[in-house]
């Protein structure tokens, strides 16, 4: 069936089988391979994308047809041209990744966390990321990265 999904602001009209999972739709039919597939069974969180700007969802556990008429943001939608999103910059600065496989999911889960809770405690960050697995970092630097991004994002832009 034909669906129309807006991904990172760009509308994609594609023909999908109802059983096509959103993660595979994004990777194979939109060519956006920044969204990774890990456990493929809703346990690891590497496939997290943002639905309608307000919910972090595991795209391996949602059918693409459920996104018909909705907006999806993937990791490709974070940076503004060559300027990294404050979360991406913070992961870079704080060494919040090693192999990088879990990073897109960490970033997209954190986007929604910081939208709902702009100033989370360390405990709240750890709780919010409890559905995202990382096998390299031991999480310490991921938590630091989210803390740095929270600080950056809460700075009020100065009017010129």
């Amino acid at each position: 069936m034909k669906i129309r999904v807006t991904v990172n602001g760009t509308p994609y009209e594609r023909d999908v089988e109802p059983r096509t999972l959103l993660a595979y739709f994004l990777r194979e039919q939109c060519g956006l391979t920044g969204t990774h597939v890990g456990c493929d069974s809703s346990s690891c969180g590497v496939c997290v994308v943002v639905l309608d700007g307000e919910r972090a969802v595991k795209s391996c556990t949602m059918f693409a047809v459920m996104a018909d008429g909705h907006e999806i943001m993937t990791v490709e939608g974070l940076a503004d041209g060559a300027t990294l999103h404050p979360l991406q910059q913070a992961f870079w600065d704080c060494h919040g990744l090693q192999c990088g496989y879990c990073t897109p999911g960490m970033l997209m889960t954190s986007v929604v966390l910081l939208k709902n809770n702009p100033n989370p405690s360390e405990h709240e960050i750890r709780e919010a990321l409890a559905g995202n697995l990382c096998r390299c970092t031991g999480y310490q630097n991921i938590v630091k990265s989210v803390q740095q991004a929270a600080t950056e994002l809460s700075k009020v832009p100065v009017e010129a």
Partner: protein
Amino acid sequence: MFPAAFSYLSAHSIDEALASLLEHGADARVLAGGQSLIPAMRFRLARPGVLVDINPVGELNYLREEGGVLAIGAGARDAALERSAAVAARYHLMSDAAAVVADPVVRQMGTVVGSLCHNDPAGDWGVVALASRAEIVVRGKSGNRVVPIDDFLVDSYTTAVAEGELAVEARFPTPGERTSGSYQKIERKVGDFATAAAAVQFTLRADGTIADAGIAIGAAGPKATRVAAAEALLAGARPSKELFRAAAAEAEKISDPIADTRGDVEFKRAMAGVLVHRGLVATFERLGGGVLA
């Protein structure tokens, strides 16, 4: 792994969903958050021919206190409960549970009513619903029927929802000022199925005696299980160490878990008792009960 092929129908109103469910009968399944159904389909444990997606049904997406209950529409996500000030203030048992269902990302998609309809033996909401004495509103072509949770949870993965019907709302009675509760769960890691779980709720009357006790355990049999013997012990009694130990022993007695990688039968039965005991003590403390005699 991809699920077997199916036909997809998206519903935009309750009537539209009911029409599709009636037309396709036993071949149709309701798709809400999909956080249990989609993995089950991917592992080919479920193979519905038709999915009726109720996510676009705006009229089902609500959470409201009215007429002495918290009414949870079939579209309400677990995360909505987690963020609700009303739930945090008055529904202590639900508030505990809302923070430990699956993981935080799954909770942004998963629904309370969907979890009750899935009726997994290790699910959280069935246990909480039993202790809270919830009711489920089920709509069919001849209108609504209100089903007490004890009748709703029929067997593993089986509920009282018949072909052509849709569970539209769960109703949790509003606890009074002297009522509190606690949800206790052991899990190996966030997002794993519960090794054991217990839900406790009771009222501490002005004279210091217990009323309206609700005790239930999860991952302890084919479905969430009410510990009626413990409730009977607590009714009208004064809280004491001995009373709470005796109530916990009833949970251990009735627990009927299966052995798996999370533990053997002996361990899981013992944990059912331990968790009921912890829940009773936590509830007593929340009610400002003081030192337990």
